[in-house]
């Protein structure tokens, strides 16, 4: 198995799972001959034909609503948005339909759609090609929300999503698509709902996911130079959260920094912070810090100020360590 970047790992996983499971069908704009905007579906049309790779049924809302009908019928549709920012026309189908089909039918029907959303900034995309919409989806019972942070996890978590029974909002950090190549074992699977401690430390817990995980790891290196040992937890799945791993980490450190790209207010960090306050109060030695995007629309020219940078994360680690 060759070393793969994240886009290649996703492509290879889709291909392998489509071979394994006839019911998987891909939907999305330009996913056919073009191979997807980021190349994640390259070659799949040639490999599986138009019966399995359906190019753009009528816009984003159409691709998502169509996927719901296909999933009810018994297929496993994988809908790709070109950018997570384009998902809103299909929001009603996700929140009111996909997420509730099982519930409102008393478990008689299910809707195992995998919604692949290239998300986040760092590519100069401006406010309509850079958003991190996870909070909107994490507020919806019935959805699984996941965000891998490297090629290995992207393959393993996508495989789990494609074999799962629930609808999955799969957030792919597009700034990492073409990142470093790593060895990805065929058939590798990462169960959804399991976080991963990426670096062990006893002073400060840093909780990150998707695009902010590499930033957290770099900041951890810098903090170590300053003598602060961080426990870096890659949450991987946001809904449902791996509460056990989160609480073990905070029990060890008593100090928390949460790193996310989306705006602060009511963002994922708010839920995590509330959870820590409710369940780990007696462990806490310092206020919980959130390093996130600001409460502004995603900016264009000021993108680098907006995104949680290594410098901002290091500063937060130092503040909570020295509180």
């Amino acid at each position, binding site marked *: 198995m060759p070393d793969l970047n994240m886009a290649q790992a996703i492509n290879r996983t889709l291909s392998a799972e489509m071979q394994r499971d006839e019911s998987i*069908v891909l939907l999305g704009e330009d996913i056919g001959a073009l191979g997807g905007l980021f190349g994640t579906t390259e070659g799949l049309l040639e490999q599986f034909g138009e*019966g*399995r790779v*359906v190019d753009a*049924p*009528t*816009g984003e*809302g*159409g691709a998502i*609503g*169509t*996927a*719901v*009908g*296909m*999933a*009810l*019928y*018994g*297929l496993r*549709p994988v809908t790709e948005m070109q950018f997570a920012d384009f998902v809103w*026309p299909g929001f*009603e*189908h996700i929140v*009111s*339909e996909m997420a509730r*089909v*099982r*519930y*409102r*039918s*008393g*478990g*008689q*029907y*299910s809707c195992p759609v995998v919604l692949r959303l290239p998300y986040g900034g760092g590519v100069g995309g401006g406010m309509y090609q850079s958003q991190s919409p996870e909070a909107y989806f994490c507020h919806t*019972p*019935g959805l*699984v929300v996941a965000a891998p942070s490297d090629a290995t996890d992207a393959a393993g978590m996508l495989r789990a999503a494609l074999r*799962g*029974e*629930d609808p999955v909002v799969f957030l792919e950090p597009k700034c990492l698509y073409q990142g470093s190549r790593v060895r990805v074992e065929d058939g590798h699977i990462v169960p959804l*709902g399991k976080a991963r401690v990426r670096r062990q430390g006893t002073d400060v817990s840093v909780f990150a996911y998707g695009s902010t995980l590499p930033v957290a790891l770099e900041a951890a290196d810098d903090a170590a130079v300053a003598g602060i040992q961080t426990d870096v937890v890659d949450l991987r799945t946001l809904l*449902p959260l791996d*509460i056990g791993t989160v609480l073990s980490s905070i029990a060890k450190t008593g100090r928390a920094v949460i790193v996310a790209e989306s705006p602060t207010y009511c963002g994922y960090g708010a839920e995590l912070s509330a959870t820590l306050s409710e369940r780990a109060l007696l462990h806490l030695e310092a206020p919980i810090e959130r390093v996130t995007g600001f409460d502004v629309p995603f900016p264009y020219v000021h993108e680098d100020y907006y995104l949680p940078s290594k410098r901002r994360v290091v500063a937060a680690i130092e503040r909570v360590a020295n509180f």
Partner: protein
Amino acid sequence: MGELLTILADDVEDTERNVGDLLDADLTALYESLVVTRIVDERCARLQQSGRIGFWAPSGTSAAVSAGAARAFEDGDWLYPSYRDIGAFLVRGGSIEQLFTQVLSSRDDLARGRQLPGHATLPAGRFVSVSGPLATQIQHAAGTALAMKLRNDAHAVLALFGVAATDQAAFQIGLSTAARHAAPVVFVCRCPGVSLAPIVKANGVAPVSVDGTDILAVYMAARSAREAAVAGAGPTLIEAVVPKGTEALEPAARLRPYLEHRGVWDAGREEEFGRRCEERVAAAVALAESAGPPPADTMFDDVWATRPWMLQEQSRKLRRLQDRTGYSTPR
């Protein structure tokens, strides 16, 4: 209503010429479905007036659209209903008893009392659980039909909705998706007048306008549209016109003179069938009311395939509260 497909004429001899190959059994079944729908409607209206249910969307004079269209579809076909499609629910094999478990949110309701009265689910009849938002089911129907096409499944999909759904984006997106793939789906819209043909055509779908209080017209139009869909000729939209208010004719009353003329129905059968339905409905209501609601803990089921830790914890909390206070009603 000259441009509407109509089977039931003022003169029964004209009707006779129009009915073609319809069998006695088809005719009486269609008629009976109208009577049952009316009796259920009346009972549910009373349940609502007396505060025993909180919501009811009556079929009223549009009953023929739901039952007539559904009857034109075969086992193995899929139906995407609206919340005004009790007729279709019964035609697809749903029983009166089952219907009232849903209407009264009894513990026997398949969907565990999670939906407003009339938002039924009938997996055995491939009658997909009714969704509240307008028009979303139009897109889902197109999706299911596209899936059938991709899988060489020689069945069809029926989507039912009211005219308000046609103002939603999902209406046009559903139509154009189905048209683009020549997916086997028939859209049936209850309309107060003729208005949809231009927009339907613009989305690549064939429009047909029928008299929506004439159940034979609805049935025959739906049957032709289904045949065309299965044959690969693409989707049709049937605009079933049901005039508002007093202009509308009660669909059972419209059909009955022809059935009597044909000798398959009479006052005796009317009386007997009506009485049996009333009795069955009364018994179904009594049964559903005596069964009581599903246990509160079922609220936490079917959100995800399995309960994640949050729901396990919330379920425990609710149960502890119930144990401590012994309360059976939460307020």
